[in-house]
């Protein structure tokens, strides 16, 4: 018997098992497409260039999708092979040797591998391009984001999934090599058994989830958030699978024990059915739950970044016009005269094009880094440092009073302070040989928005700031000298076009001087919107991708279970099951099939909130309200979409079994 014979046998088997193979091939193609598109984004220009964080995030995302698709393919394979046990057992009885059966399976696997990988690469190319086109059209960002992929990505995808299918092949062969034909003939009939040590596994699942959640809850700073996020995601994914497997079996068994619940037509049929294939059922639900969490996180974060653009701009640029006077090369007197002179000049410049300054903020400041040890301030160099130090700004009381609209007076040894973590315990602060009595400044400097912990000190005399600068110099002679700089920010009236014109003028003015630098919020607005629009684009793209994944998984689950259950429903109809009751039994699965994954996903996302929020500060988003609104919106929207998916696929299920 040659290979040709086995190939044709394999082809025939696939054809005659169409009902099983069509959903199988569809789902595996879809999941590989998903991986392929995700890994193509890794080499995307936007991802590579926008932020150093993005390639890392997408690499992690690709790994997560890779692991997920591995589990998913094993899952659909187990459906397939279970339903084919009888057929393959028959080969044994008809006298085919095990190695021949293995050969038939080999060619079958080869064909399915080829079809789904080739299919995925083609679909990926087409789908990727089409969706990028569509999204570019819909979002109309100032600059289009282009779809790109590389032969390398395709090669990696093909290699990886060839490996995954090889594993399914080994699994299938082992199933048949170690089982006797009689057992195989019965194979489809036996229900699944509860996994051994399920209590331990249940505890393990809680530990994994707790650990993952714990990472998110205790995350200290945004920079470590990104690396730890990955670990947390993996822990939660593993925890979810174990929780669903052990938890759902436990709940189902408890429901079955409760005679009042169990012995009613709907639950009777659905609970027994789910217990019969408890592991498959649990893995299917966990798959849906994980995809749902991914959709919600991807879309809600990027929506937050996009919606929060205005706020981010305001955080980054406190005023429409922002001029910084660098004091490194200036003496104290020069700084003071320029500081006052510039303010007048800006009023004049605005007037020249018939605009009025509506609001101006100006202050002189010194920026240093250090740590509080007791009440002593120990200076440190700024970034990069292993432990991010405290970011300290020293301001002049006169400027502060003006800025805050206050009339506070300080005597010589006193200072006001602000700390982003709230009030300090210390009564005073020692800097070098200087000591200040501390009073809390009743003013919000918005330090919570900053990536690092911030402290502001306000002293009455410019000479005192100078002194602190000198002490810093003495303590850290090798560090860059800390200069006293000045900031002047102002808004004007007028149209956006006029404001832009003023921005251009100011830019020119600043480029004439070495120590001036200027930033206009208006000039950055467009750039920021296109950047953050890019995020939104990716978020929606991933959201769509995962939603399609959810559709296919739900569809696969319903179709394959439908074929599994068909015979049962036919028998039950013979002994008096009516169509209404079939409906009722599918309806009683709603809570289970619909609510369970969505609710668990929502819980996951709620726990992910702290770590995601920390990561978002890297992108400049700080508003809780924006986040909460977009999160709630996305959960509700996805819930609605999943509801539709669920309804449509359960109709498919119904039409199969009735």
């Amino acid at each position: 018997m040659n290979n040709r014979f086995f190939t044709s046998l394999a082809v025939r088997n696939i054809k005659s098992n169409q009902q099983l193979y069509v959903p199988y091939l569809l789902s595996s193609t879809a999941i590989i497409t998903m991986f392929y598109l995700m890994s193509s984004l890794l080499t995307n220009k936007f991802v590579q260039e926008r932020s150093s964080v993005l390639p890392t995030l997408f690499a992690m995302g690709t790994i997560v999708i890779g692991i997920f698709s591995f589990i998913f393919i094993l899952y659909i394979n187990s459906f397939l092979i279970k339903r084919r046990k009888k057929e393959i057992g028959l080969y044994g009885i008809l006298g085919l040797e095990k190695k021949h059966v293995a050969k038939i399976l080999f060619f079958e696997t080869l064909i399915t591998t080829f079809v789904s990988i080739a299919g995925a690469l083609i679909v990926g190319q087409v789908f990727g391009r089409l969706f990028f086109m569509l999204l570019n059209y819909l979002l109309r960002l100032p600059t289009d984001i282009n779809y790109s992929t590389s032969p390398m990505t395709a090669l990696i995808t093909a290699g990886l999934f060839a490996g995954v299918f090889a594993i399914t092949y080994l699994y299938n062969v082992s199933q048949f090599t170690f089982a006797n034909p009689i057992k195989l003939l019965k194979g489809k009939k036996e229900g699944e058994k509860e996994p051994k040590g399920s209590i331990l596994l249940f505890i393990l699942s809680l530990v994994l989830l707790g650990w993952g959640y714990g990472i998110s809850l205790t995350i200290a700073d945004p920079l470590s958030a990104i690396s730890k996020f990955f670990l947390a995601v993996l822990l939660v994914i593993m925890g979810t699978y174990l929780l669903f497997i052990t938890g759902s079996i436990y709940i189902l068994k408890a429901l079955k024990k409760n005679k009042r619940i169990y012995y009613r037509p709907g639950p009777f049929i659905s609970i027994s059915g789910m217990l019969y294939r408890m592991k498959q059922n649990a893995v299917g639900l966990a798959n849906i739950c994980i995809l749902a969490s991914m959709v919600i996180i991807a879309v809600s974060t990027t929506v937050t970044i996009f919606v929060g653009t205005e706020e981010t701009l305001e955080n980054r640029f406190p005023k429409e016009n922002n001029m910084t006077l660098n004091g490194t090369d200036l003496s104290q007197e020069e700084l003071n005269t320029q500081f006052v002179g510039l303010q007048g000049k800006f009023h004049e410049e605005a007037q020249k094009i018939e605009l009025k300054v509506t609001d101006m903020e100006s202050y002189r400041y010194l920026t240093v880094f250090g740590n509080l040890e007791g009440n002593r301030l120990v200076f440190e160099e700024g970034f990069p440092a292993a432990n991010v130090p405290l970011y300290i700004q020293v301001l002049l009381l006169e400027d502060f009073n003006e800025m805050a609209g206050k009339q506070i007076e300080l005597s010589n040894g006193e200072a006001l302070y602000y700390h982003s973590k709230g009030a300090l315990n210390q009564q005073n602060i020692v800097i070098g040989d200087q000591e200040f009595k501390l009073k809390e400044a009743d003013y919000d400097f918005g330090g919570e928005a900053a990536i690092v912990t911030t402290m502001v000190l306000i002293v009455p005399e410019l000479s005192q700031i100078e002194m602190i600068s000198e002490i810093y110099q003495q303590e850290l002679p090798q560090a860059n000298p800390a200069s006293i700089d000045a900031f002047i920010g102002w808004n004007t009236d007028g149209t956006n076009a006029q404001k832009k014109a003023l921005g251009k003028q100011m830019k020119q003015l600043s480029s004439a001087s070495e120590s001036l630098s200027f930033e206009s919020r208006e000039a950055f607005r467009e750039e920021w919107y296109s950047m953050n629009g890019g995020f939104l684009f990716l978020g929606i793209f991933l959201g769509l991708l995962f939603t399609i994944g959810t559709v296919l998984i739900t569809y696969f689950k319903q179709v394959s279970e439908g074929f599994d259950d068909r015979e049962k429903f036919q028998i039950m109809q013979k002994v008096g099951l009516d169509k209404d009751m079939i409906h009722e039994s599918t309806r009683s699965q709603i809570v289970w099939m619909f609510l369970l994954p969505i609710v668990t996903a929502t819980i996951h996302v709620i726990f992910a909130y702290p770590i995601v929020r920390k990561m978002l500060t890297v992108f400049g988003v700080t508003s809780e309200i924006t986040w909460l609104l977009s999160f709630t919106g996305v959960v509700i929207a996805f819930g609605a979409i999943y509801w539709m998916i669920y309804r449509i696929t359960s109709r498919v299920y119904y039409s199969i079994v009735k």
Partner: protein
Amino acid sequence: MALLEIKNLKKVYTARFSNQQTEALSTVNFSVEKGEFVSIMGESGSGKTTLLNIISTLDEATGGEVYLDGKPLSNIKDKEISAFRRNTLGFVFQDFNLLDNFTIKDNILLPLVLSKTPVAEMEERLIPIVRKLGIEAHINKYPYEVSGGQKQRVAVARALITQPKIILADEPTGALDSKASQNLMEILKGINETGQTILMVTHSTRAASFSSRVLFIRDGSVYHEIYRGEQTSDEFMERISQSLTVLSSRGGKDE
């Protein structure tokens, strides 16, 4: 009045992809009194299963009528048909038709659960039946964990539990060996003796010899019947075999 009355029943199958027609039943007339145990015999393809399926409302007749308790079955509305099947009829099939996702107990209770019977009543009915059928020890097992004979007794228990007016059995011993068949037939006979009406299709003369009357069906109509009367099982079996040989050798429909 007879419990079951069949008048001029006719069934013609039309093939799905051609106009070729098969007349499975031409004109069937007979009736079954309450408490009778009637066997139907006949060659393969003579229309026995078709007849049983029409009586059990799984299939619709082309002409004629089936009356149960004097009421025509064709009057039952579509919506009520499942409930009718559940509450009035009991089925025993050749291939058992048990569900692998239910325990033996749940398989037996299935029709009662579908009728929304209170739990207490279900359990009250279950115990005496499983005891009588000798499957009490297995009620928490699954169908794939018990023997064929036990499976068929489970199916009988499922048919009995709704206290149906009539039990319809299509070759119940078809998949069983002679010992298990004997055991099953004794059980059916015992059930019949408590007043339960049974209508059974069978190929086995031994199985038929347990009943009180045998109908012979050929080419879609009943052409002969014999009563057991006072005969012993063995005598009755002898007569059934004789009838079969005589009738099949004679051929034609000239009764």
